[in-house]
């Protein structure tokens, strides 16, 4: 069987994980920044974000063989589903779960100062990009994503309808996504 290329689609990388362990390495490299960024924006601590990222990828690895590609649910959505669950569980329990890593016999990752700095940089990049958004989008994204406020609350503050806020947030995130991809 020929080794799967690093450029292969996510679904192919996950399918090849059982026979080609490096395929999961490629999957990790592709999504590391997004997952780390997702956690960092929510917990604000690079070490906790790294812990949550490690557990998310470990859980993804243990269930990679169960992943069935579907048109409406690409692999990245499946991965973020796991990430959301990990975050919710950690908030509920007041700690980061280590079950998947334990099951896999993974050694705890000890972060060096350089690694912490590299992770923190991710947050700064994202915040800089938020600041560069057009005024209305910046306010909406900051209120919704950074401060995690409800739409009705933001709408009241910005003196517009909820639908307008949703549209601004959506457009702002779309712009951010594009700029993040340009940077990477």
């Amino acid at each position, binding site marked *: 069987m020929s080794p799967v290329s690093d450029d292969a689609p996510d679904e192919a990388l996950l399918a090849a994980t*059982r026979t080609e362990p490096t395929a999961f390495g490629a999957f990790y490299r592709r999504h590391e920044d997004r997952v780390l960024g997702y956690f960092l924006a929510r917990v604000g601590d690079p070490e906790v974000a790294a812990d949550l990222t490690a557990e998310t*990828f470990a859980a993804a690895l243990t269930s990679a063989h169960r992943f069935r590609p579907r048109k409406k649910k690409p692999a990245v959505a499946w991965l973020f589903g796991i990430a959301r669950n990990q975050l919710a569980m950690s908030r509920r329990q007041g700690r980061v779960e280590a079950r998947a890593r334990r099951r896999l*016999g993974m050694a705890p*990752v000890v972060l060096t100062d350089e690694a912490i700095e590299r992770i923190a940089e991710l947050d700064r990049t994202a915040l800089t990009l938020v600041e560069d958004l057009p005024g209305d989008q910046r306010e909406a994204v900051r209120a919704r994503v950074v401060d995690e406020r409800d739409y009705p609350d933001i709408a009241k503050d910005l003196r517009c309808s909820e639908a307008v806020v949703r549209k601004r947030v959506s457009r702002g995130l779309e712009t951010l996504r594009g700029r993040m991809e340009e940077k990477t």
Partner: protein
Amino acid sequence: MTRIPELEQELVAAATRLRSPRRVLRPAARLALAAAALTVVAVLLVVEATDRDHGRRAGQHTGTPPSQGGTKVGVDVSAGVRFTLEGRQLTVTLLPWALTETRNRVSGARIRATCGVAYAQVGPEGDPRNAREERTRFWPAGRDSLRFRFRGVISSSNARWCRAEDAAVGNVGFVRFGTAPVRMRSPDRRIKQMANEWAGLFAASDPRACDNYMTQPACERMECMRPGNRPVENCTPVSPAFRRSFRGARVEKLHIDGEYAGVAFSNGRTAVLTRVEDTAQGGVWWIAKFRGNPAGRLLRP
């Protein structure tokens, strides 16, 4: 380069381990395989004993040429390591249920195999009953077995024990040949044993309670501290009285539900254990929750 290259390495190593037959097998199949392996060991031990009797009757004595010495097989059940000594050739094999710790320990390490005749020094130096021999070889990563060839006095005709070890981190496996194979343990017995041992160490504030018997999150909730002196939110450290209440406590009730087991101790407290590894001896179970009444739901009839 990724932001956490160590994590990528750990994940790829874990994926490699998942690929091994041990992980692909389901727990039931693993147990069946373990039972089959132990049956083979028992049969081989009987064959070996028969061969020895036959040899004795034919006037053979120790020092028989190794090629005629038959085969000795022993299994270190807890480590999941089999030793097969055929003449002067020793094969050390990791069995499907070998602990991850054992696999990690041998993989890519220099492993020393030693076989000997006496369990302890007998007679003066140079007495043939004290004979022992060792060989060291590099164990390639991902391999399940490795052969060592003795060149001196040791062979299957006289060896009574063998050991494999990593010079840096210690024992990998040890067997005594000719002893009855260790019986497989049920998870019930194993869980009770681990929970009882934990209770004693926990009551005495012995750090081994955490190191050897508890999951990392459970450990963190004892002192409400995460590594790096980061406090655990909404957590109160356990009181000395709570610890003391476990002194002499024994498991009185147990219920297993898949990967989890609930136990009720004689002091009225309960705990939840989680299976972190499958072994022929009923698995390795660690305390995952021990505050409040965590096993109440599991133990409810």
